[in-house]
């Protein structure tokens, strides 16, 4: 090694994270200077600026220096300066300065980190999916239209906490949006946001290790946000002396870097360091760059002129006399209004962010309209659409509501009567629908995971210090747009980071984000492989397409010109107004001017106790005694009971399983966790173990608490929610004092002779192995966790193999006993499957007798768990629909040959169910897909093509820990509306032409 630099007594640590730069100067082991600033992606200039600010201290003598942090990596490399990984730096500093610490939690701008010291050093960072924390809080604050500081203050005044998905920022956002629209208190939402951050840290990072002992909280967010501090202390049940929030928390990494530099670094003079950093301009244009959007101003002008043609005439409201029709589109982030004259011209339009309180915005607008209309203009009809449709309808006595997909279709047809494809990118979602035979044919909505696209541009623009318009304009003439990929916003954040590191300027990033939004829509949502698939006549709309950069990217990516109505952001409201007109009402029931002036709105939150779902309800009270309840999954709290009376196989199956008796037996209790495949095979294992003389104890139906109980031992945060729940089921059994648990591993499932093989998916097959390795209690003295690998597909060898597995823990069992029990088990399972089918037949017969539509809600056996399906079965039933499962109808057709390897028992049923549905005019199929189910990436395309070839619509609902039922409702309503439209068209044009054409050829 080099000789020690005796003379150097000063060391500098610079921590450059995703959002901020932190600089610290240590002299003679004392911190003499510290500074903290946001860098707004200007990494190098900001670092230089901070260094210059400390110039007086550093100018006179040499010092050592080291860089750290995610943005520091690139700079250190380019400048040839020492670098230390940031988590490692934290670990070093804590070991030195607070050696009695047991664990460290550090939240940064986009990373979350945890370090365990006691019981084996372990340092972890969030996975690439877990999203940001500091940046996430900022984003959420923007969503609520408050500053991050205000968010903190609000949260401290919370009365209740809503569950908000905690795995990923985007998920959380789509949970918060409906809460906002339903009028939940901002204080409560703010607290829920912080709670989500805490939950995310616990599941995403602790991964099976409990956070106990003395915990040190570091990083900016944990320093600034008192509400976050409070939530951590509460969730981890820490006593005050064990929860340390050091004032140096923000500088821990910088300090660690300084200590590292002291040990290993070469000394620099102030001038040398500045020089190195000045020269460290990272090479430009090395990374993936795209074509510029416009080559010249002339190109742009031509483009603008072309799109200016798609417009609606306007009339001056103040000089108009006559009838008018009002459309209100209360979207997830914006509220839009359009008032149409009798001949379809626009009298008034409004578009603005709803600032977290759409009711107030609509009231202001209606007041203004009523005043300006006075007695000259008579509003003869009004209609509302969008996420807040019900809220607005109830608040202001709007005449009608329509599902937003239909509103958009109506509007698009005005601009392009032959429209065959509509793409709408709004603030929160991407919607697209194909039009065939003059009705909506297939609807695609983005999954919760890739949502947030429109508002992403907005939030991002703001975080870089621009308005959305300004930011978009910058991108138009970017020379080398950055290629940021086509994934969810969380990924985009790190792509942006990377691009900036590689020297992309704001212009390039702005253009790159526009291209990404478009790619996301095309490849993730529409899943198009060529422009031809979209059809000839494409209409694009939604506020995001007002951004010329996005529009241009879309046309470039598609290689085709499209129609963007000048009122692209108002199309929902415009369509609603057209609908209001079609109602042909004599007079609108909309609140009068007086009523609007006296309008009041209060909301309170409560929990519904009518069933196990325990929905968080928001009760909105309006003047005049009108009220609106939201947050419910079914219509029971609204006084309706219709859903409860219709046959619903999801509900029925669960009831049957729960009714299996718990019979005391001589061998004592044995527990079975009620999740994954146990939700189908319970009758089998129940019969088997009961017959063997065990008292079979089944863990209860899952709830949110089940999840929370097992949350801390989940090692992989991207596994599906049904699997995650298993941790809680095990915990519940142990809590009940059950010390013997039986949960076999099953590579193979029953062979139903529908496909090429009969596997379970890897997660269903082997989750018991994971539980054994991660739930510490299962390995305790006195606990017996039986998880043998068993092959129920081979009854002829099953007895022998089972006997071998049971003989060790239960040596007194005889082979004869086991053989008899096995026989009983197979009989019980056969009987159960037969009963499901019989019940399915009865339900279908009932539906037909009483004129109800039937939905085959297709998923996996475990989707009957209400915590997994979030009450979607009831929601569908509330539309007067009979719900059956895929297992009830999959035997009614010959096994389907598919274009994939059909090797999983559960999945083979899906294909058959889809095929069967195509033969039944009164049936539709809705597929439930759990987030993270890799196998459904294969099944969904196949089910879709079976249905579409049979002339049916395909609807997929992706569900996870939390599901935004608002979006589900829209999809179900759209489906029903499209089906009704199709039926009407068929009646009009009977005999209907066989549905075929492009699609069939494409897949054929």
């Amino acid at each position: 090694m080099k000789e020690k630099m005796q003379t150097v007594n000063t060391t500098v640590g610079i921590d450059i994270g995703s959002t901020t730069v932190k600089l610290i100067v240590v002299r003679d082991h004392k911190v003499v200077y510290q500074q903290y600033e946001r860098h707004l992606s200007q990494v190098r200039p900001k670092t230089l600026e901070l260094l210059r600010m400390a110039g007086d201290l550093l100018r006179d003598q040499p010092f050592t220096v080291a860089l750290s942090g995610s943005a520091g990596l690139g700079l250190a490399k380019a400048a040839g300066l020492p670098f230390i990984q940031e988590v490692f730096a934290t670990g070093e500093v804590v070991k030195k300065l607070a050696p009695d610490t047991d664990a460290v939690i550090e939240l940064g701008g986009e990373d979350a980190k945890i370090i365990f010291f006691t019981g084996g050093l372990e340092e972890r960072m969030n996975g690439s999916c877990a999203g940001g924390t500091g940046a996430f809080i900022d984003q959420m604050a923007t969503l609520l239209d408050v500053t991050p500081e205000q968010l903190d203050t609000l949260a401290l005044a919370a009365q209740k906490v809503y569950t908000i998905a905690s795995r990923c920022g985007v998920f959380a956002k789509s949970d918060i949006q409906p809460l906002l629209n339903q009028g939940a208190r901002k204080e409560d939402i703010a607290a829920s946001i912080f709670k989500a951050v805490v939950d995310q840290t616990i599941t995403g990072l602790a991964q099976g290790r409990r956070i106990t002992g003395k915990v040190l909280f570091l990083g900016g967010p944990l320093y600034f946000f008192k509400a976050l501090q409070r939530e951590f202390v509460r969730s981890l049940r820490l006593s005050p002396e064990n929860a340390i929030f050091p004032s140096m928390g923000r500088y821990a990494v910088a300090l660690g870097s300084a200590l590292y530099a002291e040990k290993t670094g070469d000394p620099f003079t102030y001038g040398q360091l500045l020089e190195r950093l000045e020269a460290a301009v990272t090479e430009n244009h090395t990374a993936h760059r795209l074509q510029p959007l416009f080559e010249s101003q002339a190109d742009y002008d031509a483009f603008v002129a072309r799109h200016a043609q798609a417009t609606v005439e306007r009339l001056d409201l103040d000089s108009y006399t006559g009838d008018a029709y009002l459309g209100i589109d209360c979207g997830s982030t914006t509220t839009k209004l359009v008032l149409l004259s009798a001949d379809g011209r626009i009298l008034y339009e409004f578009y603005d962010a709803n600032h977290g309180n759409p009711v107030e915005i609509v009231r202001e607008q209606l007041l203004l309209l009523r005043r300006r209309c006075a007695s000259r203009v008579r509003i003869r009809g009004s209609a509302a659409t969008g996420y807040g449709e019900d809220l607005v309808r109830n608040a202001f006595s709007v005449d009608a509501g329509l599902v937003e997909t239909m509103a958009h279709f109506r509007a698009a047809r005005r601009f392009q009567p032959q429209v065959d494809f509509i793409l709408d990118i709004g603030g929160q979602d991407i919607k697209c629908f194909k039009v065939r035979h003059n009705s909506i044919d297939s609807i695609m909505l983005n999954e919760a995971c890739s949502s947030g696209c429109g508002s992403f541009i907005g939030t991002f623009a703001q975080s870089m210090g621009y308005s959305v318009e300004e930011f978009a304009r910058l991108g138009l003439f970017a020379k080398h747009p950055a290629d940021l990929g086509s994934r969810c916003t969380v990924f985009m954040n790190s792509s942006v980071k990377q691009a900036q590191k590689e020297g992309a300027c704001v212009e390039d990033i702005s253009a790159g984000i526009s291209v990404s939004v478009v790619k996301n829509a095309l490849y993730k949502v529409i899943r198009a492989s060529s422009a031809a698939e979209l059809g000839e006549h494409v209409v694009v709309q939604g506020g995001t397409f007002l951004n010329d950069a996005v529009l241009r990217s879309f046309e470039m990516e598609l290689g085709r010109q499209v129609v963007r109505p000048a009122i692209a952001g108002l199309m929902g409201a415009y369509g609603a107004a057209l609908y209001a007109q079609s109602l042909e009402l004599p007079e609108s029931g909309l609140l009068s001017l007086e009523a609007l002036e006296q309008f009041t709105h209060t909301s309170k939150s409560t929990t519904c106790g009518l069933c196990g779902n325990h929905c968080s309800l928001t009760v909105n009270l309006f003047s005049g005694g009108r009220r609106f309840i939201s947050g419910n999954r079914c219509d029971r709290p609204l006084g309706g009971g219709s859903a409860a009376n219709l046959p619903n196989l999801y509900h029925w199956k669960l009831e049957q399983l729960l009714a299996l008796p718990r019979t005391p037996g001589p061998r004592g209790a044995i527990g079975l966790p009620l999740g994954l495949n146990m939700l189908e095979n319970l009758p089998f294992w129940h019969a088997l173990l009961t017959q063997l003389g065990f008292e079979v104890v089944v863990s209860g139906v899952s709830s949110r608490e089940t999840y929370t109980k097992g949350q801390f031992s989940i090692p992989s945060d991207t596994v599906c929610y049904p699997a995650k729940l298993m941790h809680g089921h095990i915990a519940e059994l142990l809590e009940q004092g059950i010390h013997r648990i039986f949960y076999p591993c099953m590579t193979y499932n029953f062979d139903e002779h529908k496909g090429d093989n009969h596997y379970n998916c890897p997660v269903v097959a082997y989750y018991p192995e994971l539980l054994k390795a991660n739930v510490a209690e299962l390995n305790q003295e006195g606990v017996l966790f039986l998880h043998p690998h068993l092959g129920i597909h081979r009854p002829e060898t099953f007895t022998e193999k089972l006997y071998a597995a049971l003989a060790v823990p239960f040596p007194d069992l005889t082979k004869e006993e086991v053989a008899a029990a096995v026989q009983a088990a197979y009989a019980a399972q056969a009987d159960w499957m037969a009963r499901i089918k019989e019940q399915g037949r009865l339900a279908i017969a009932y539906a037909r007798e009483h004129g109800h539509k039937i939905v085959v809600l297709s998923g996996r056996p475990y989707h009957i768990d209400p915590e997994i399906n979030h009450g979607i079965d009831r929601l569908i039933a509330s539309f007067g629909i009979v719900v059956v499962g895929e297992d009830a109808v999959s035997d009614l057709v010959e096994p389907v040959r598919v274009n994939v390897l059909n090797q999983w028992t559960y999945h083979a049923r899906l294909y058959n169910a889809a095929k069967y549905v195509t033969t039944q005019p009164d049936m539709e199929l809705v597929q439930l897909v759990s987030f993270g189910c890799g196998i459904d990436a294969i099944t969904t395309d196949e089910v879709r093509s079976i249905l579409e070839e049979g002339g049916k619509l395909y609807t997929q609902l992706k569900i996870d820990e939390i599901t935004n039922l608002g979006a589900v409702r829209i999809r179900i309503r759209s489906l029903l509306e499209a089906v009704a439209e199709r039926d009407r068209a068929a009646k009009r044009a009977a005999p209907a032409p066989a549905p075929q054409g492009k699609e069939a050829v494409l897949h054929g």
Partner: protein
Amino acid sequence: MAEMERVLFTKEMKKDYTILVPTMLPIHFQLMLDIMRSYGYKAELLENSGRNVVDSGLRNVHNDTCYPALLVIGQMIDALESGKYDVHKVALMITQTGGGCRASNYIHLLRKALQKSGYGFIPVISLSAGGLERNPGFKLGPMMLDRIFYAILYGDLLMLLSNQTRPYELEAGRTDRLVDQWAARLSGQMRGRGLLSYRKVQENYKAMIADFAAIPRTQEEKVRVGVVGEIYVKFSPLGNNNLEDFLRSEGAEVVVPGLMDFLLYCIYNQLNDQTLYGGASRLRDGVMKWIYRFLVKKQLDIIQLIQAEGSFRPGGYFPHTVQLVDGYLDHGVKMGEGWLLTAEMLELIEQGTCNIVCTQPFGCLPNHIVGKGMMRIIKERNPKANIVAVDYDPGATRINQENRIKLMLANAHAIAQSEQEEDTGDLPMPQYEDYEELAASFR
């Protein structure tokens, strides 16, 4: 329903069709392609990479499908669209594993993607040990299989030797040149017909080991980092963003368990299925057992030659690797890389390579269990284990991956430093007298 007609690779096609093969393991695949060529096939290894490949994959495969499928299919369609080939004179080859993992569906996803992009007429050849699909124009005869088998062993040995030489070579590029020379030499030798002479094969092993041992190397101690994971992202530089290069550029020696282990794992699972569930004929079971013992012996021969020469650390011995997971998970876990992935982590740790990158495609189903699911107990029982799990997918950025790997490396260096102070003795390696016993212990 409209089931797609499978386009066969006919005997006529063998004459003038070029078979395109996606790259996974550069050395192994090169040897295997040479063998195919010597059997009269025109074959070419696809080496196109970069953003176009990913974009093509995104367009043509469901985006939630695992990353390897997306890359392999993207690479193929990108190649077809490059204009380099007459698309009416090419066939595609893809491996098909079978088993409960969705990887067994790659070939079907490829066919669907071809159909969708207007290439439905291109024949796709499935390469699998189990013989899932047949093509009249493509047959793996016993002589060809014999050669492919040795190509795997040669490839593993070349990979092992070069990995242990490259970081220490005094003259940059010397190791890679030697790898190329040997690959060419081996291809030449395998050109003829008839069974390969095993004596000759062993001579090759010895000469190879000696050649690599002769490359002048530095004496410095480098941190060793093991790479395990889903087979494609573990091996393929395209799949793992050139992970091995990155690790080496950070001053590490890379340790990658070979491909032979995966093949043995597949055979072992068939035997184990019989133990767990029964049902196979006695003859079939007997034949599989014979093959297993045969292959294991071949692996042992290499290990012994390496040990005899003394300059290099041999790879793990499969029957021993099998035993390592006892007490962690059951050998019934056989989807994807299954128990082997856990076993390889334990093998690395046992051999003193405690720093491990566990690679997987984002959302990989088996790895929830055998990768991330096992890390807790591995660390608990092996306190020195320093494992980082890295997810790969089209949206994951390199900076994110590298930052996490850097954390693992920082710890690795710290551990190495503290160990130097302690000075641990020789690595605990099982003596090879035990090996025969181990192999026999499998019934």
